[in-house]
């Protein structure tokens, strides 16, 4: 791109970039600036808008808010970890074990559920799991259960739903790092006396670390910011921080409070990712390549 820009006039480049720059600026940068401004304003006793940080203080004053946030962050971390545990063997199987001619097909199988929207997929799960759903029907039919049980609307169902919706975003970066892993490294480790466990721990995971980190960031962010899955599968008991933000905007119509929560979510999730990168010794610029 840069050589092209140097070789010819830069004008065509700007013409083509204008729509995307406008889009970024008008739909992302501007609203964020406005939200940020809004989060620092409250209505005083006379009904005038004044500058204040009390929207942010509210988050720490009410335990329900920061408890919900901690819960959300913890569950997002658990979801990320579970997704990783499932995706690592899947990616390894597709790139290293499966016959080469099936690799494309297997990747396609992974991709297929993502051809329909998240909402449809979640409703699919709900049809399977709810009290009058498919699984309950068969369990009762076969005499395993006396009467149907409600499998939806708890943390387990919600976690499963989140893992399911975000798995692809972990598998894809893992597929590419696993693909770049030279088979002979695994053989060499085997030849030098390691067992399967040390090969995974000393060779595969260190090699896959950039992919693990980038997949984890995406999955963590997607889970943390997910509204649909916790709401539909977690039900009333599974509080999610995005629901709090939604409530402030839509139910309480308190946009100032809502935008403060939004920014807190942004800052805190960035902080968690920063800590995660530090702990695993990865660099953001390398991970997002």
């Amino acid at each position: 791109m840069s050589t092209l820009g140097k070789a010819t006039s830069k004008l065509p480049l700007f013409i083509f970039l204008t729509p995307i720059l406008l889009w970024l600026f008008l739909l992302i940068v501007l609203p964020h600036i406005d939200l940020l401004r809004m989060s620092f304003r409250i209505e005083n006793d006379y009904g005038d808008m004044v500058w204040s940080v009390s929207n942010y203080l509210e988050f720490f004053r009410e335990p329900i808010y920061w408890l919900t946030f901690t819960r959300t962050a913890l569950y997002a971390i658990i979801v990320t970890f579970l997704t990783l545990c499932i995706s690592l063997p899947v990616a390894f199987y597709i790139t290293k074990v499966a016959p080469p001619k099936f690799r494309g097909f297997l990747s396609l199988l992974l991709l297929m559920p993502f051809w329909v929207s998240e909402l449809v997929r979640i409703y699919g799960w709900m049809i399977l799991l709810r009290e009058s759903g498919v699984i309950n029907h068969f369990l009762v039919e076969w005499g395993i259960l006396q009467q149907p049980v409600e499998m939806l609307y708890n943390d387990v169902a919600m976690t499963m739903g989140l893992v399911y919706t975000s798995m692809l975003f972990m598998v894809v970066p893992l597929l590419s790092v696993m693909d770049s892993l030279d088979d002979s490294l695994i053989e060499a480790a085997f030849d030098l006396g390691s067992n399967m466990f040390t090969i995974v721990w000393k060779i595969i995971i260190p090699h896959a670390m950039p992919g693990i980190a980038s997949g984890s960031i995406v999955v963590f962010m997607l889970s943390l910011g997910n509204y649909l899955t916790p709401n539909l599968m977690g039900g009333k008991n599974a509080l999610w921080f995005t629901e709090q933000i939604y409530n402030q905007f839509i139910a309480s119509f308190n946009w100032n409070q809502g935008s403060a929560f939004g920014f807190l979510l942004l800052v805190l999730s960035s902080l968690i990712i920063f800590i995660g990168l530090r702990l695993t010794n990865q660099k953001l610029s390398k991970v997002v390549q």
Partner: protein
Amino acid sequence: MEVDLSVKSVSKRFKSFVAVDDVSFEVEKGKFFSILGPSGCGKTTLLRMIAGFEEPSKGAIYIRAQNMANISPNRRPVNLIFQHLALFPMMNVADNIGFGLARRNESKTEIRKKVSDILERVNLPGFEAKKIHHLSGGQKQRVAIARSLVLDPTVLLLDEPLGALDLKLREQMKIELKKLQMEVGTTFVYITHDQSEALVMSDHVAVMNEGRFEQIDSPQNLYTKPASPFVARFVGDNNRLPGKIVGCNDGTAELQTASGEKLLIRTDRQLTPGVQAELYIRPESVILEPAQELPELNRLNVLVSSILFDGANTQLLVESPASDDELLISLPQNRQYEHISVKDRIEIGWDARAGNCFPLP
């Protein structure tokens, strides 16, 4: 003499393709054994069977008289140096070399001592903390060898480890590797398609073709007394003269080429008159413009088609009706033959004992 590695009628087939076909050999303790063959001849498969990455379809492999069947690579007393070395890029030099020792649960101080000893041995003292991608090709080579040698394997297997190096470095590493092998006294099994590597380093060389061993011999015998036309062609340069045996008695045979020249051959091999045969002459066995009084010399009149100047290895390409292919002749650079130029007609000759003649099946 103790036998470290013994391979007994080993075959390996992949579906209908036979990669290794009934191969047997023994390697004595402390020897440098090479398997030389063109790419795709099955030598890598053979090596991977010894290392344990493939199971033989038939036959057995013994290391120090112990059958290796169903023993996985991590439990075999052999180590393999991979073609592309397979150093672990996520570890430094010390961790790479100490990897196998750590798997044996040796103590940290013990590992550190052994690593620094072996680095000394491969001429890389003080390289412990270096990253793998900071090393040059030759240094990587030595680290890979150190990583395997530090485990003190019964047999060290090497899968064309010099292939990736440039020519100068390869020549240097050849000598170094041979020296190192003599110092440590470990049995080496080395596979290569480069005949010079095999000849320079080995005590014994097996020439492999299409899954079979054509000949197992010392490098000298391989060169001077090839057992088959394939070995004659594959090891070193050779000139092929096809023809028909017209007479044979008492160690002397006569070959008539298609163009009618009769060539005298002194050989121990039984050649029956009437069979088709091929005579192989080394480029350096050919005498240029031989003196008239020399006895038992086969003489041919040839046309110089080109001069391939390559310093000490300068060669002449000549055309002769006796062969369809051009003949290759070494041209000594002692100024005696400076007058020879392209399109000249010259006489060449060779001693009756110089060639190797094989009857065609």
